[in-house]
């Protein structure tokens, strides 16, 4: 199963994840 998030955010938005990283519910994905 796969989930895709597509969203509009301020340009300053930065991901705080890496590709192939394991994530859990509630974990930070990014912030402005």
């Amino acid at each position, binding site marked *: 199963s796969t*989930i*895709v*998030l*597509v*969203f*509009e955010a301020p340009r300053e938005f930065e991901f705080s994840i890496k590709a192939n990283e394991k994530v*859990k*519910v509630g974990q930070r994905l990014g912030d402005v």
Partner: protein
Amino acid sequence: VINAWTQTPTKWYPIPIAVGAILLVVIQYRRTRRAYSSPQVDGPWQVHVLGALPLRNMSRVWGYLNSLELPPWFRPFGFRVYAFAFGCNLDEIDEEDLKTYKSLGEFFYRKLKEGARPVDNAVLVSPADGRILHFGTVQGSRVEQVKGITYSLDALLGVERPGTPPASIAPSQRDAMPVVDDQEFANVNGIEYTLDQLLGSGTSTPSSPTTPTTPSPNHPHKFGSQVDASVVESSRDLQETLAHDTSVALEIGMKPSLERSKSIYGASVKTGNALFFTVIYLAPGDYHRFHSPTAWVVQKRRHFVGELFSVSPYIAKRLENLYGFFGMVPVGATNVGSIKINFDQALRTNERGRPPPPGTYSEAVYSAASPILNGQPLLPAQEMGGFCLG
């Protein structure tokens, strides 16, 4: 020969009407079959091998087995084996007594203990346990290439630029080439889908699921309210008849739109903003419920009928940049299941029977949930639903 040609008497016989009717039926059948013929597999040998496997039927059998009720004495043993094989952490599940899970499907849809997943204060949090396959920004008509796979999200914005030439890559070539078509879209779960269809101009009768509609690709998508995020579960290529995939797109909005600038691609993006995406893959051993990634209001849902397939990151990595491949062959299909959304009891995915015509979807709006907010409000990490087995 001459004598035979000239001396043989000619007799006329009436041809039975049935022969003519049968001939017309055969011609029509062949024409219809040609129109809906299955896509041709093309590409490296891995594609042919995987394409030859009866993955769809195997998935159905696997899905059926997952819903069988297991004997109580077997459940603890069987689930522990499953947990060991797929890396499930049994210490964090809500029901620690494994006998309470009657089938593998129920175990698959297990809940976690309260507090097992602390929620970060960030504006965007992960909606599910899994692995980040890709993430990045939408640059122009394409998603910034990440980990070797290129997307095009031009169709997300629902605007077809005047004079834009149609796709020049034939379906049979897609699986060997990166994205080139402006009307193509994100490669999700290995399946192409157009987000124009997901967030585009489809209209619906408020507060009730609609009959399948075909959105117009030429109608520009206006962000009538600011779209903060969409959750899309798998998808289907709506420009080609490819492997079916169920997708449920949730469109939300938070504020009324302000004056928006238009990019050169006709996208309506607020000044100072940009489009971002991330793809999260849920492995078989992962907690399979999904939660809200942010504080938002879900306004509508679109359901593209199909079947669920799974594409593992291993397969995705082996076939980097084979854009379109995943849209043609269900790679690594492991199960058949359905999608549940807690606040949408009408949603029924993975139903048997005649599928709706390609490129159509059913839509539901959630304005009844909160007339003031015009949708279903959700808090960060609030449970939304999940992926069910069986």
